[in-house]
C-alpha cells in the first residue's frame, strides 16, 4: 500500500516516527498550503530537505552562516556555478576556507530547520516515494530523527492547545478596554494588531500577513491571554439564520412562539 494521505489525518511528526521506526529510504513529498517540500531519508535517517525552489546550495548556506564572505560567495557563484555541492565542498575544505565540520553542521541545521517549518503545515497532502533517492550531487547528512520527533510532538501539543483555544478563524477580534500602552509586542504581533477590527476575520488577518493557521493562532492566543482582545462575530457579515430555527418566517409569529415557550417553561 502506498504511503500517502492527508496532513489532517497524519501529522509530519507521525510520518517521521513511521519513517524512523521502519528505517525507510526514499523521499517524503509534502504538498503544503503554498509550497511543495521534499524530505529525503536514508535508512530512516534524514538525508536532505528542501521547500519549494529555495536556494539551498552549499555556497548559499555557508554564506548565510557567515562562513564565506560576500566576495567569496560572489566569486564561487560566478566561477564554480556548475560544480556540484560535493565538488565544491571538497574544494573549500582543501582551500582551507571551511572545515568538514562547518559544512556538516550547516547542512544538518538547514535540514532540521526545513523539517521544523513543516510542523506548521496542518493542511496538505503527502506521499512517500521509495524510488526517489536523495540527490546525488548534494552532500547528504545522516541525522537521527528522534530529536526532531520530540520537537514535533511539542509543536503538535501546542497546535492542539491553540486549536482548542481558538477553534475557528472565521471569527473576528476586537480590542478590549485595556490600553495597548506599555505592551511590548514584536513585529509580527504589531502586524496582526494593525489589522484588528471587528470587520476582519482572523483568517483574513492571517492572509494579509502571509501567516499560516498556527502562526496567527499563536499570536492571537498571546493577545487573548493578555486580555487585549476578545473574539467576536465579524461585523458586516450577514449570517442567514437557519430556516430550520423557526417553523415560520413571520417575525411576529416567531415572537409569539418564543412567548409561548416562556409561558410554558414558567408553568413547569
Amino acid at each position: 500500500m502506498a504511503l500517502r494521505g492527508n496532513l489532517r489525518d497524519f501529522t509530519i511528526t507521525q510520518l517521521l516516527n513511521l519513517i524512523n521506526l521502519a528505517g525507510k529510504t526514499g523521499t517524503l513529498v509534502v504538498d503544503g498550503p503554498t509550497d511543495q517540500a521534499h524530505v529525503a531519508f536514508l535508512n530512516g535517517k534524514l538525508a536532505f530537505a528542501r521547500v519549494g525552489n529555495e536556494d539551498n546550495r552549499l555556497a548559499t548556506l555557508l554564506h548565510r552562516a557567515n562562513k564565506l564572505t560576500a566576495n567569496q560567495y560572489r566569486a564561487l557563484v560566478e566561477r564554480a556555478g556548475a560544480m556540484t555541492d560535493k565538488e565544491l565542498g571538497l574544494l573549500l575544505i582543501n582551500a582551507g576556507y571551511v572545515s568538514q565540520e562547518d559544512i556538516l553542521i550547516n547542512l544538518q541545521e538547514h535540514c532540521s530547520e526545513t523539517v521544523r517549518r513543516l510542523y506548521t503545515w496542518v493542511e496538505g497532502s503527502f506521499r512517500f516515494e521509495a524510488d526517489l533517492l536523495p540527490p546525488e550531487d548534494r552532500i547528504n547528512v545522516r541525522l537521527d530523527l528522534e530529536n526532531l520527533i520530540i520537537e514535533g510532538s511539542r509543536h503538535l501539543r501546542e497546535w492542539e492547545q491553540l486549536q482548542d483555544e481558538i477553534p475557528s478563524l472565521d471569527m473576528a477580534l476586537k480590542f478590549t478596554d485595556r490600553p495597548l500602552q506599555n505592551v511590548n509586542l514584536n513585529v509580527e504581533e504589531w502586524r496582526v494588531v494593525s489589522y484588528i477590527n471587528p470587520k476582519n476575520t482572523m483568517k483574513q488577518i492571517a492572509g494579509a500577513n502571509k501567516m499560516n493557521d498556527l502562526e496567527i493562532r499563536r499570536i492571537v492566543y498571546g493577545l487573548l491571554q493578555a486580555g487585549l482582545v476578545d473574539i467576536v462575530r465579524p461585523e458586516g457579515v450577514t449570517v442567514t439564520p437557519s430556516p430550520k430555527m423557526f417553523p415560520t418566517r413571520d417575525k411576529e409569529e416567531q415572537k409569539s412562539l418564543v412567548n409561548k415557550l416562556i409561558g410554558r417553561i414558567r408553568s413547569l
Partner: protein
Amino acid sequence: MQTVKMVVTGPFSAGKTQFIQSVSEIDVVATERKISSNEERSVKDATTVAMDFGRITVDEDLVLYLFGTPGQKRFDFMWEILSEGMLGFIVMVDSTRPETFREARSILETFRAYAPTPYVVVANKQDMKDAWELEDMRHALRLDPKVKFLSCVSTKRDSVKTILLELLYSILEEMETGG
C-alpha cells in the same frame, strides 16, 4: 406540529443529561455507553456518545426539543449536526472541575462560530462545597461582561427553568433588537 430546539453543550460530566432530565416530560432518550477510559471512569460510569434528547410540549401545535451534545472532543462531529437550526444554546460548566474550564471555553467558541444564535453560560453544581465562585469562573472562562453567566444546580427543576427562561429572554431580546 411545530417544533423548535435548543442545544445543551459543555465538557464531559458537566451535567448536561441531568439538566435535560430535570425538565423533560419524557425520560431522556440517552445514548450512553460505559466508559472505557480509567481517567474518565473515575468521574462517572457512562457517558453520552451521540446525543441526549428531551421534550417539552408547549401546546398541541408546538413542541420544544432539548438536545444534549456529547462532551468529549472525539464526538465533536455530532456538535455541528445537533446545532443546525437551534434557537439558542446553553454551555454547561462543572463549577467543581476547573480542569474542564479551558475545554468549556473551546466548546463555547466552537458553537459561537456555528451559528449567530443567543446563548447562556451556566455554572453547574453550584451547590457543591468545592464549587468555584461565579466571578472567578467568569474570569477563568474569559467571558465578556455582557455574556449571561448563570448559577445552576441541574438536579433542581427550578434552577433549570431559570436557565431556559434566561435563554428565551435573550432570544426574544435579540429578535426585538434585530427587528
